[in-house]
């Protein structure tokens, strides 16, 4: 059996632009309303890099936590971290940048050994090209304010080479 009547036809609209979910710019939401490690970001906003230490077993964590992975205690205190360190490894991001970073390429990223403490973190390295850097180079903390679509004042850390006095 066939049906040769023409079906009815209509147009439905979808939005011209669909906004991405709010977390896709990779800088996490940092306020007390959003995260229980907001103190890390609060201190960073005041120019201090910090992390949590366990009041019960004295373990130093990075990234900061709300529960100690060594003893499962939750009495943790924030403690300042050194602002200087050395480059443990580095490379450059060229083609494969995610949302929010494509305008920055090429950019240098790497791993920094913080001085005098057992913390090794990944970070963007500003103020230097890949060819200018070597493993072991001294780097120092830099704070960046995030200029984004949200009202919240977000902030993050990067590092940059320590310039010798002779330069």
């Amino acid at each position: 059996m066939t049906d040769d009547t023409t079906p009815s036809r209509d147009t439905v609209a979808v939005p011209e632009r669909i906004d991405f979910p709010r977390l896709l710019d990779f800088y996490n939401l940092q306020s007390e309303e959003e995260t229980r490690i907001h103190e890390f970001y609060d201190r960073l906003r005041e120019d201090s890099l910090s992390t949590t230490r366990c009041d019960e077993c004295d373990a130093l964590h990075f990234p900061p936590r709300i529960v100690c992975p060594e003893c499962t205690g939750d009495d943790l205190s924030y403690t300042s971290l050194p602002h200087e360190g050395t480059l443990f490894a580095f490379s450059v991001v060229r083609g494969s940048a995610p949302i929010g970073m494509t305008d920055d390429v090429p950019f240098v990223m790497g791993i920094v050994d913080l001085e005098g403490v057992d913390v090794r973190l990944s970070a963007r390295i500003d103020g230097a090209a890949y060819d200018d850097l070597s493993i072991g180079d001294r780097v120092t903390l830099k704070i960046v304010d995030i200029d984004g679509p949200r009202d919240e004042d977000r902030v993050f850390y990067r590092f940059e080479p320590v310039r010798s006095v002779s330069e």
Partner: protein
Amino acid sequence: MTQTAAIVGGGHTRWGDRQATWKDLAQEAGKAAFDDVPGVTPDDVEGLFVGAVQPERFAFQSHVAPLVAELLGVDVDSMIARTELACASGQAALRYAWLAIAAGQLDVALVIGVEKMNLPDDRTEEMQSSMTNVVDREFDGVNGLNAPSYFSLIAQRHMHEYGTTREQLAAVSEKNKTHAANNSYAQFQKAVDVDDVLESYPIAPPLNLLDCSGITDGAAALLLVSERKARELTDTAAYVTGSGQSCMASNSINNLPSLSAWPQATVAAEKAYEQAGIENPVDELDVAEIHDCFSISEIIEYEDLGWVEKGEGGRFIEEGRSALDGDIAVNPRGGLLGCGHPLGATGISQALEIYRQFTGDVPDARRVPDSPETGLIHNLSGSASVHSVMTLARDPQ
């Protein structure tokens, strides 16, 4: 273990930048698997295990296991699950199925991995974001630690600490991509040599474009059945003899045990070797499919899977010990470097390759000589924070 399980066949889609949806790929691979094993129909399948990493991001679809059940007409009456373990999701699905069969819960499982990764060209950064969120996005992804940049740090450290050379890295790509040139489903079916690798675009130094696997759409499926069922169906199967995994309470940069060493791979391998009764892997393994997401990865795996002293991985490739006719034929399929890496499908494809090498059903140009009888698959995932190893044998132990 009450009983083991065996791979009795399977199939692939073509891998690459496919004009096909996630659902299309699942159907293609499922059909290929059932076509390959005439003795098993969808009605026989009791358990369904689907490896898929990011259908929510790449295809905006979740709860994919029942989607596959419907598409392939599989009436599950025992166990259905989707596994997500980043790049090891396929092996994770296979491991779940093996454990379910070993526990006596079911006799016939369909294990399928599906990933649709390529988005339209103007969505490249969206696709890249779905790779960057595999690491701790808040403290590592945010710094641009995507796959190539992260593994470039690993390569730099391995070269720095052990003197591994750029040429040794390139030799891995040459070997695997040359194998892929004879693999009809591979994404990159073009042989390259060391010079081609060294002259390719420096995507994240010291890694060049040809040191990297691809962004790949693809699926693979296999049928895993109980030992009893396998004996009914076929004379040649790939029996699971051992399986191990390790994650050392670490995922982000500060907490990983090392960049240039993967002790998790050693733990996972030793567990699998012990179960399989393997005392000397180099002597006892004939063929291996290991996770060459980047050329450096394969070199570190030679070391940390216990095949050569730490730091000697570069010499293992240089001396031809991982060639088709070497001590262990490594990545005859073409590896991730040659086949591409549709995340959830890779581990299943690797296991299927071991099965095919056992049956001899592979082109001469990439067939492991002397009728291989033992094999291994390995996957790392994310920041290499997890390693998964499975051993297989042609004959039941």
